[in-house]
């Protein structure tokens, strides 16, 4: 956690802040979802409560908190009550291990009559060297909460919804993990910071002994592995059970899927879990294919921004802090764009049929992801032959 009181305090505060960030993003996303869907479908959406209907979020939160607590008569109490809590865990753990800004370097300073520092604080909950392996491992636990909810509710609709949802998650997890293999071969590391550092600066690469350089394009992963990015994006939709893959919640046949028997705050926790999954997927998309916390303009690398603030007369600590802030805003904007695409797609495309979903997962996405990994490996081997 840290060597002294200051470092431990900051690290604990970071953990709490990142969790609160995920929780706080949910009402905003719900509002965006309602308003966005309304505009896409030529309606007005929630616009009565407060400016732009923003107070609707507070009203919803109060409603969720004050709804009556109930337990279905035949429910298995432990599983029924534990499922919403378990639903929060994968998203929260995965999000806390993602880098959300450039590291803050704090120079030594005096406070309360003693010397502190120097420190390096990373803008993330905790840094795990193997980054993506941890994120995939934690995300794969998401199916348990659905299964627990489905079994614990003792309801046919919940059960069928849970089975559909978990089968879908397992199927698309394969394509999701395999689609990342290509980009991992390109960068040769699991570590998020090294991956982001590789994507700084303009697009340049060597091929058959020749150098190619595009000074107007950033050095992003999507230019190296566009098929991987596409496959990852599509399987992220399926992983988080969103339309056009939201079969578990097919209202026409399954009422509301695995959370049919849930209401009030427990329902809200499932929502937070689902949106947390979306946020993690968007952040991964940004980190692997769109430069992470780097800025989209090639000459504005993290060092350049740091130098800019230092030249403006900031001290080394505050310049580093400002750089972290800029890079944080940069990745938040990227995440926001991908979240909007999630919402946009939901209100644009119709739902797949279940057998089409499974065919797409096993007979299209999986072979393409495998081929992507193999072709990338062979191609990298071939172009590096002297």
């Amino acid at each position, binding site marked *: 956690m840290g060597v002294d009181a200051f470092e431990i305090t900051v690290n604990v505060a970071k953990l709490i802040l990142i969790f609160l960030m995920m929780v706080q993003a949910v009402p905003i996303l719900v509002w965006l979802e309602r308003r966005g869907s309304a505009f896409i479908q030529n309606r007005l959406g929630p616009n009565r409560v407060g400016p732009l209907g923003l107070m609707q979020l507070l009203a919803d939160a109060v409603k969720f908190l004050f709804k009556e607590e109930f337990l279905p008569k035949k429910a298995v109490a432990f599983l029924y009550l534990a499922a919403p809590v378990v639903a929060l865990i994968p998203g929260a753990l995965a999000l806390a291990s993602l880098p959300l800004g450039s590291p803050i370097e704090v120079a030594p300073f005096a406070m309360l009559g003693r010397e502190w520092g120097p420190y390096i604080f990373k803008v993330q909950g905790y840094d*795990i*060297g*193997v980054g993506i*392996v*941890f994120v*995939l*491992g*934690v*995300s*794969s*636990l998401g*199916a*348990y909460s659905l*299964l*627990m909810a*489905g*079994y614990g509710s003792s309801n046919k609709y919940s*059960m069928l919804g*849970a*089975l559909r949802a*978990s*089968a879908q998650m*397992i199927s698309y*997890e394969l394509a999701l*993990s395999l689609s990342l293999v290509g980009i991992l071969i390109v960068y040769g590391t*699991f570590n998020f910071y090294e991956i982001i550092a590789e994507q700084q600066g303009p697009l340049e690469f060597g091929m058959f002994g020749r150098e190619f350089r595009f000074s107007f394009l950033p050095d992003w992963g999507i230019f190296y592995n566009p098929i991987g990015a596409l496959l990852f994006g599509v399987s992220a939709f399926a992983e988080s059970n969103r339309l056009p893959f939201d079969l578990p919640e097919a209202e026409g046949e399954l009422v509301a899927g695995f959370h049919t028997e849930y209401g009030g705050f427990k329902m809200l926790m499932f929502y937070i879990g689902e949106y947390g999954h979306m946020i993690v997927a968007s952040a991964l998309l940004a980190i692997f294919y769109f430069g992470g916390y780097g800025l989209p303009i090639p000459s504005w690398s993290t060092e350049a921004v740091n130098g800019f603030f230092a030249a403006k007369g900031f001290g080394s600590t505050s310049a580093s802090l400002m750089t972290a802030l800029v890079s944080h805003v940069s990745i938040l904007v990227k995440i926001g764009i991908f979240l909007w695409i999630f919402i946009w797609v939901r209100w644009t495309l119709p739902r797949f049929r279940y057998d089409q979903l499974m065919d797409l997962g096993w007979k299209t996405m999986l072979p393409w992801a495998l081929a992507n990994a193999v072709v990338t490996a062979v191609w990298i081997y071939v172009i590096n032959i002297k």
Partner: protein
Amino acid sequence: MLALADYMFYFLSLLILVSALGVLTMSNPLYAALSLAMSMLGMALIFATLDAWFLAGVQLIVYAGAVMVLFVMVIMLFNISAEKQAFSRGTVSGFFKLASAGVLLGLIAGSIYMSAETVFTPPPIAASEKLGDATQQLSEALFSRYVFAFEVIGAILLVIAVGAVALSRSVGGSHAND
């Protein structure tokens, strides 16, 4: 003096042991499967406290995330209750349970007795320095020194998967003719 890491180890070991015991004592197969998942989670956390992050991640992805989820799904789908009774009661099955528990205990006791010397002597310090996040060393060893064994295991697993599909499609069952 116990450090934080020691407390973590004892807590996780307790978690693993209790949930492993749960696998045996729970009469509902779904709960047994869930406790097995719990004990796998504990194993992953122990790997993580040893700084073997890659192993921890793989344990989560493969065992807790894929294998056990399938188990739980299948158990849920059939909602076994008659089999549960037949399996957990009865003199004959009780005898077999006792006998197999005795054999297992004998195996464990024998292996501890025979390997006590190597297990209970602390390893030299030099070995523990090489720990840490050794994912790259692991992959290099796997794909250069042990590449033959690695590929053979892959081929065997493929044969198993294809064989399972062939068996389940050819004889009876609802998928026989499609």
